[in-house]
């Protein structure tokens, strides 16, 4: 593998794993969303997001990193490059047993991620690695509707009851503390942006802040400073127990019969 290829795949792992884990956390809500209409809409978003992960895994496959299913179902937690805030559980309980999931946290995490994903896609549109240009264009149209969905939720909940406002503000500060990990490009960030694969971390951050503050302005909310990375940097393989248990569920059947050729 050439050095350049190493940085290319490093970036694509980040993109693939972010979408893969994010979609998983979303899919755990299936049947538990605030109302049935949302269950249907959210589920469609999760499918799209899983599809995006799959497209990135395909790029890794062509780079010789392994097959799509090996990459998604047969890697150790430390090999995952997703941001920590995306692996965090939706709440207490599991998706099958007494889930006490937090809708405010989910809306904020999706909104924050959605805004950054949009910025990343715009930047990938001009990537020096051509396959990323094609993939980002395919993803962009769907992403537009996802972001609109979460913006609507955000506005409505922020401008409704005091109870909802409090929960939402709590969720904002919680996600803020770790969202820096999503913006991060990891330890090879400089090489990745020097190769013009994607904009630099600083550029991504300032554009993200600009758009988020714009959204906050509309509901009379503000926050100071930069988002943090309190629990560590997932881009460098640092993760929590939440990722381990998520991966166990995601690959339970895959690992249940090692002789199986097809599923």
């Amino acid at each position, binding site marked *: 593998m050439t050095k350049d290829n190493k940085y290319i795949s490093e970036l694509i792992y980040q993109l693939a794993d972010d979408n893969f884990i994010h979609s*998983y956390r979303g*899919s*755990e809500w*299936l*049947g*538990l*969303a*605030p*109302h*049935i*209409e949302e*269950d*249907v809409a959210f*589920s*469609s978003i*999760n*499918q799209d997001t*899983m*599809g995006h*992960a*799959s497209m990135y*895994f395909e790029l890794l496959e062509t780079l010789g990193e392994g097959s*799509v*299913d090996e990459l*998604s*179902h047969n890697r150790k937690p430390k090999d995952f490059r997703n941001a920590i805030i995306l692996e965090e559980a939706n709440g207490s309980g599991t*998706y*099958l047993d*007494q*889930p*006490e*999931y937090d*809708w405010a946290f989910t809306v904020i995490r999706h909104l924050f991620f959605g805004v950054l994903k949009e910025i990343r896609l715009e930047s990938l549109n001009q990537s020096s690695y051509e396959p990323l240009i094609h993939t980002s264009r395919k993803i962009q149209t769907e992403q537009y509707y996802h972001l609109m969905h979460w913006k609507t939720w955000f506005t*409505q*909940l922020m*401008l*409704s*009851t005091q*109870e*909802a406002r409090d*929960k939402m503000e709590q969720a904002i500060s919680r996600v803020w503390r770790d969202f820096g990990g999503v913006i991060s490009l990891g330890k090879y960030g400089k090489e990745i942006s020097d190769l013009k694969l994607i904009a630099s971390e600083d550029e991504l951050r300032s554009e993200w802040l600009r758009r988020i503050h714009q959204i906050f302005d509309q509901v009379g909310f503000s926050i100071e400073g930069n988002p943090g990375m309190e629990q560590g940097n997932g881009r460098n393989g640092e993760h929590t127990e939440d990722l381990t248990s998520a991966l166990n*569920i*995601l690959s*339970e*059947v*895959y690992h*249940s*019969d090692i*002789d*199986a*050729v*097809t*599923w």
Partner: protein
Amino acid sequence: MVTVRFSELTEEEKYNHFMERIENDEKIEADDWMPDEYRNALIKLISSHGISEIMGALPEKEWVPKAPTINRKLSIMAKVQDEMGHGQLLLRVNEDLIKPLGRNRENVMNDLFTKKLKFHNVFHMPSPTWADAAIIAWLVDGAAILTQTMMLKTSYGPYGRALKRICQEESFHAKHGESLTLALASGTSNQKQMLQESLNRWWESLLMFFGPKSKKDIGSSSVDINIKYKLRTKTNEQLRQEFLTKYVPKIKLLGLTIPDETLRFDEEKEEWIYREPDWKKFKQVVSGNGPKSEERIALRRDSYKNNEWVRNALAAYHQKNRVFAG
């Protein structure tokens, strides 16, 4: 010429006029006059169909994140989403019917939580392995396709239109289920065994799915009323026979054994002979005392309660905006 306004007709005349429309295969719409018996039969049928779609998402939901490949993850996600969508569509049709009675979605959900509103027997059953995701999509959906197709010509227009869309999507579910089943049936001995065990688990529930032959089996049945009003055209037994004709050969072709030694096609009577399911058990299961009833109802009840603040917030937001707009 003397014209009499419809509102001036006697109840009996209205009823006769309504039945004439039914006889002429006219479609009844939500705002049309309809006898209480018809409205109640529709509410019973459509609300339990709708809630069955929603509760039906739960046994499969278990396998959504666990699906063994990315493509399987994508297809089972799409499938379960469709089922929720069917639930949504049907609950909306039902909402128009219950509105004149002063009832709404919240009442329907509460009826589910208090077990007043019943859902299909199959969705009270456990789905402990990946093979259950295959058998559900292939055979439970296969059974549902037969009943839903039979009702496509139903006399109630909004229900018929909803069913038309549902049936289109169901054909994709059948393909998805067939593909999952085929992969396991042609897989390792473990995979085959898992599939056989799942079929054993589901067989009786599948036969039960269509309901008892006659009302003496469980004490009551709405089949007669539904046929009288042309909500449905076939009996439970006719559907079960169709199911056996369609699926027994396919199941055998996969090398699976159907867990009923008495099962055979009687050439003379031209019908399938099978071991009668335990209808007492059926009645128990659909009244909410099946192996997974409590757990699944609790999952929905608790999440409904857990998200109450969200629904309150949305109501408050829309209330405010109405005021501002006005």
